[in-house]
């Protein structure tokens, strides 16, 4: 059996856990730099504040409807997420952390368990220990556990946040209820083609012939179909290394000076390199992108990118930063007000088994140097060790005008009790 445990409106729930006065109030959380809405409480959803709403357009709507708006507080959400995942590990050793607020659990050898009861225990423990409400869907396959989770979320009165699909009758009822858009793994392309075939619900999809699905779509679609039939084909993923790592940001202000942009790019490149080292990958390709503010139509628009192919894969901040900064000189145009930039590293290979190159090679000193930099930054936090091309005086400041305290990661921000 599999379970999908999903935190309800996770970011909003984290804010509420440390500020219970926010319970039952409509709240919304903004993306990095206070751009647009990325999480809403049920109350804010009911007021029809759309997901992704740019706040500069919706601010007056929020004020008029008493929707409380917060900057995203990732130190808090990250810490709460890791607490929750650790608690989930107490229920089974087989767990796949699917996102910051979702995990798949697999129960091997739990045949005679009362899963409804076990699901309740999971939900109750997470809620009591962290204050975060979750929904738990339990079923014989991963795809069905997602469906069960949707049911638990949609019908809180009847399910109390836990739903188990443990009979064919329940499975068919669930599949007839859920539309294609809501099925995990059915992307827009597949959705379109299935609709053309007359499929409306997940149940219709499972009634298509196996061979035909396999031939006309893909092995993935076939696996999903089997999973929905109750035959487990999609297995718990071991944490898969990412195929590309990106650091892209909007700037606080626009920049038309190349040195400022070079500094930003160097910082983004360093951050990509650090992420590479964390997952044990090296990259072959660096992609650098600059763009002007596309919302300011009256200004001259410019968007440019450049791809650098490296002669050998690397995870060294020095090389990635140097290459990325050089690309800036090639694509930068004078007179443009740049608002956004990014570095994406691709062509990732595991660092431990590169092919050795005959002539071109990374300076072997980089490896121990990077290790030392990572350790120092871990120890002293806030990136004390930087490259010379990064601005040493300032730490980059995101726009976070409505930030809540870092209740769990900063001793000066902990809750105050009278």
């Amino acid at each position: 059996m599999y379970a999908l445990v999903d935190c309800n409106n996770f970011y909003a729930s984290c804010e509420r856990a440390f500020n219970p006065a926010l319970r039952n109030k409509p709240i919304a959380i903004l993306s990095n730099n206070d751009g647009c809405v990325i999480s809403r409480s049920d109350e804010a959803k009911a007021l029809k504040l759309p997901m992704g709403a740019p706040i500069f357009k919706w601010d007056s709507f929020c004020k008029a409807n008493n929707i409380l708006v917060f900057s995203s507080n990732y130190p808090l959400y990250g810490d709460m997420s890791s607490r929750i995942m650790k608690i989930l590990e107490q229920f089974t050793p087989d767990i796949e952390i699917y996102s910051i607020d979702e995990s798949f659990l697999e129960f091997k050898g739990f045949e005679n368990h009362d899963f409804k009861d076990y699901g309740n225990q999971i939900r109750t423990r997470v809620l009591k220990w962290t204050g975060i409400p979750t929904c738990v869907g339990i079923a014989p396959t991963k795809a069905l556990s997602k469906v069960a989770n949707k049911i638990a979320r949609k019908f809180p009165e009847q399910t109390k946040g836990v739903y188990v699909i443990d009979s064919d009758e329940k499975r068919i009822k669930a599949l007839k209820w859920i539309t294609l858009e809501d099925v995990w793994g059915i992307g827009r392309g597949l959705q379109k083609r299935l609709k053309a075939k007359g499929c409306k619900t997940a149940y219709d999809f499972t009634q298509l012939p196996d061979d035909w699905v396999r031939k006309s779509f893909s092995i993935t679609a076939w696996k999903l179909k089997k999973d929905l039939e109750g035959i487990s084909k999609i297995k718990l993923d071991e944490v898969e290394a990412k195929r590309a790592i990106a650091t892209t940001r909007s700037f606080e202000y626009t920049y038309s000076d190349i040195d400022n942009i070079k500094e930003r790019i160097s910082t983004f490149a360093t951050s990509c390199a650090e992420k590479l080292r964390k997952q044990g990958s090296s990259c072959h390709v660096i992609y650098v992108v600059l763009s002007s503010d596309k919302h300011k139509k009256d200004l001259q628009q410019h968007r440019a990118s450049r791809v650098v192919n490296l002669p050998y894969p690397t995870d060294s901040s020095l090389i990635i930063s140097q290459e990325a900064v050089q690309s800036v000189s090639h694509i930068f145009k004078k007179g443009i007000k740049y608002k956004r930039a990014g570095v994406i590293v691709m062509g990732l290979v595991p660092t431990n088994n590169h092919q050795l190159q005959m002539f071109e090679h990374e300076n072997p000193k980089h490896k121990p140097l990077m290790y030392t930099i990572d350790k120092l930054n871990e120890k002293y936090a806030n990136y004390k060790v930087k490259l010379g091309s990064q601005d040493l005086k300032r730490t980059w400041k995101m726009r976070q005008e409505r930030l809540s305290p870092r209740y769990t990661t900063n001793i000066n921000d902990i809750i105050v009790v009278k």
Partner: protein
Amino acid sequence: MILHKSNALTFFTPNPIKGLGAPFFDTGISAGFPSPAEDFKEQRLSLDKELVKNKEATFFARVSGQSMIGAGLDDNDLLVIDRSLEPSHNKIAVCFLDGEFTVKRLKVNTDGVWLKPENPNYPIIKITAENDFIIWGIVTNVIKKV
């Protein structure tokens, strides 16, 4: 290991061996007698381990005010709170009451729940259905600067 041999050149592949790094003795061996304490080394004491029994459920809070001085909770003290513990009679709890956090001793009997300050200048609070009330966590330790 010889990989390829031609008339002029012989190629070798290196034979990497893992795990043969020399042990590093941080006691400093100065060609004499090794430290007799080395064999008896133990982990340093950790306050974290002592004060935080359940990492996932432990949070901290700062005391503001005098209402619990009788229980040794002074203004500005640091509280260790374990949310996993069950609230019960006589435990000190961090509660959320009508819009703010408060720390008080729980008094529970068949007639109801009271929040009892440990300072005669503060009133006992009876919790009624009118109150917006949750017990947020149980206080396990108080840390104070002296």
